[in-house]
């Protein structure tokens, strides 16, 4: 493999990791506030459908993005209504959202487009197209850096860059603002926040709104940037891999980013290596590589390397004392 081949694999890894990064950041902020979010998958799927449907109807990818965010935030609010307001079981609510989304997206797309659950293929101007960062041409002749800039860093769609920016943003929000301090406290010990006179409910709802926005962007990426339209079940378990990455990164933004990139890289590498034998081990079936993120997460959770400690109040609804 040449240097350029490596760059191309990393490039595709970055694209495969984008929905994972956005969803994992969504899961991170929600779980840091104490709300288990296994509905990431459903929000991602709903976002993907809304983006493609609205982009088709209005002809604008940006309108699609707004619709994706709206639908994903709506599902987040359903989750909040069930788990924060009515103190329901968070995992059940998450499962409900996932099943609801996988049914509703097909029902809606059949009702709107009658194409067996798909949306019409989007034109180039109804999608997010790759943008070239400044300096591609000037750097083109520089060895190493030129191709690196051109192939890996530049030439991605806007959601990819949003995903990359979201990581420092979430980090800054959670660890450098008062809101973030309170949000993390609400995931560890909500009673303390409550006795300080801050609303636990409103803090948790805000965490879910942010999570919804991030999942919506991820959905829009799937159907209007990476793909060109919605296909049924197009989230294909990415929400769950994001959940795995979030745990694998131990609920810390930078580690989670690393986990997402690693999982993206595994998938990109597996796609690329398909059919070519490796030294020593021979040919690895792609299925084996694709389950590695899950296996790695299970091993980590079992405490065989490192220890993943979730926020202490995770999963327990807060009951105000009377």
């Amino acid at each position, binding site marked *: 493999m040449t240097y350029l081949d490596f760059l191309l694999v990393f490039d595709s890894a970055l694209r495969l990791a984008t929905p994972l990064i956005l969803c994992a950041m969504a899961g991170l902020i929600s779980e840091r506030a104490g709300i288990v979010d296994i509905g990431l998958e459903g929000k991602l799927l709903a976002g993907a459908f809304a983006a493609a449907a609205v982009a088709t109807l209005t002809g604008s990818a940006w309108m699609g993005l707004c619709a994706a965010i709206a639908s994903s935030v709506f599902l987040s609010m359903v989750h909040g209504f069930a788990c924060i307001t009515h103190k329901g079981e968070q995992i059940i609510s998450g499962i409900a959202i996932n099943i609801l989304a996988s049914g509703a997206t097909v029902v809606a797309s059949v*009702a709107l487009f009658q194409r067996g659950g798909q949306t019409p293929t989007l034109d180039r101007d109804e999608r997010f197209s790759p943008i070239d960062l400044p300096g591609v041409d000037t750097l083109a002749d520089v060895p190493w850096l030129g191709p690196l800039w051109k192939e890996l860093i530049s030439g991605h769609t806007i959601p990819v860059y949003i995903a990359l920016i979201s990581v420092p943003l979430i980090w800054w929000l959670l660890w450098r603002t008062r809101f973030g301090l309170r949000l993390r406290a609400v995931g560890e010990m909500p009673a303390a926040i409550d006795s300080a006179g801050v609303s636990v409910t409103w803090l948790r709802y805000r965490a879910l709104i942010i999570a919804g926005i991030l999942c919506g962007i991820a959905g829009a990426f799937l159907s209007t940037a990476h793909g060109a339209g919605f296909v049924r079940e197009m989230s294909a378990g990415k929400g769950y891999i994001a959940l795995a990455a979030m745990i694998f990164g131990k609920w810390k933004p930078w580690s989670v980013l690393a986990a997402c990139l690693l999982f993206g890289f595994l998938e990109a590498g597996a796609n690329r290596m398909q059919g070519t034998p490796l030294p020593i081990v021979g040919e690895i079936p792609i299925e*084996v590589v694709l389950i590695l993120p899950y296996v790695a997460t299970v091993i980590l959770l*079992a405490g065989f390397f490192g220890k993943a400690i979730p926020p202490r109040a995770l999963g327990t609804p807060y009951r105000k004392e009377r």
Partner: protein
Amino acid sequence: MTRLPAWIEYLLIPIMNLALAFAVAAIVVMLIGESPIDALTVMINGAFVYEGALGYTLYYTTSLIFTGLAVSVAFHASLFNIGAEGQAYLGGLGALLVALALQDWLPIILMIPLCIIGAAAFGALWALIPGWLQAYRGSHIVITTIMFNFIGAGIMVGLLSGSLMRPGQSNPESLLFEDSARMPQLHSLLGELGIEIGRSPLNLSIVFAAFACFGVWLLIWRTRWGYALRAMGASEPAAHYAGVPVPRMIVTAMCISGALAGMMAINTVMGDQGKVTLGFPAGFGFTGIAVALMGRSHPVGIILAALLFGALLQGGSELDFEFQTITREMVLLIQGLIILFSGALSLMFVPWMERRFARKEIA
């Protein structure tokens, strides 16, 4: 804390939650521009009236009884087994391996129990690992069972498109079960007795499902082990102080849960398809969660809920033929709504009911 009367808690509130789910679904149908009444009529006809329809409904019900029971046994230990889907998938592998190894030599009367054991054993194995990890390593069962669904699916894809793939197939499918390892279908059994019923994949598994219901009831409510299990589910520290070996109980409970989920395979794989196909559990493991929730984790409730969802699934497939704009995914939507309203939002009406009930008590 006030206690609601049984008829409110076990009848009125579940019905109100269910009604709410159907009301939202009806609004969706109206938004699409069709009449909810028409859609409901089509679904009821499709589920019960047409020739063979009831057989299909009961066939789906059978699968759902197994997965519903599986989820409920874990629920009683306050464990959340979201892995029934993967356990059922692996159960299919277990039945297949037993069948491939022995079906040329043994008669059907031996093959069926052996294949059931194979299915249950593989299902149990796939729940054993998450159970062990929860009990002894403290990893969260929900996350590990989710991960195991995907790991199981990956393994099955590998096997079905690899060493277990039937030659000459374009889609990944397993080698076939011979007649000696197939669950007899009811229409052919009854046909031999001279009773004619419509053709459907309904098979003897439904009898095993009934046994499983009885067995679970016996186990949970009539044995020391079941008592210990429910005690552990109610309060783990209390059970621990009472001398219940908590980690071992967790592992056993998960194994039983997984075995029941694995047995779903005997219905679909041995009773209908005669082979293991890609993704054959088709979401029934997840629907089992809805069944267990609706059925309040009690075998009788599970039978009723499984019948409801079985009818929805069968009736829903009829929507495809009758409407241009409504498809069977409508059922998935309804299912999601039911899980939302009778699972996550199950407490929504409780405070209101408690207020009303308290007023009555004063008067």
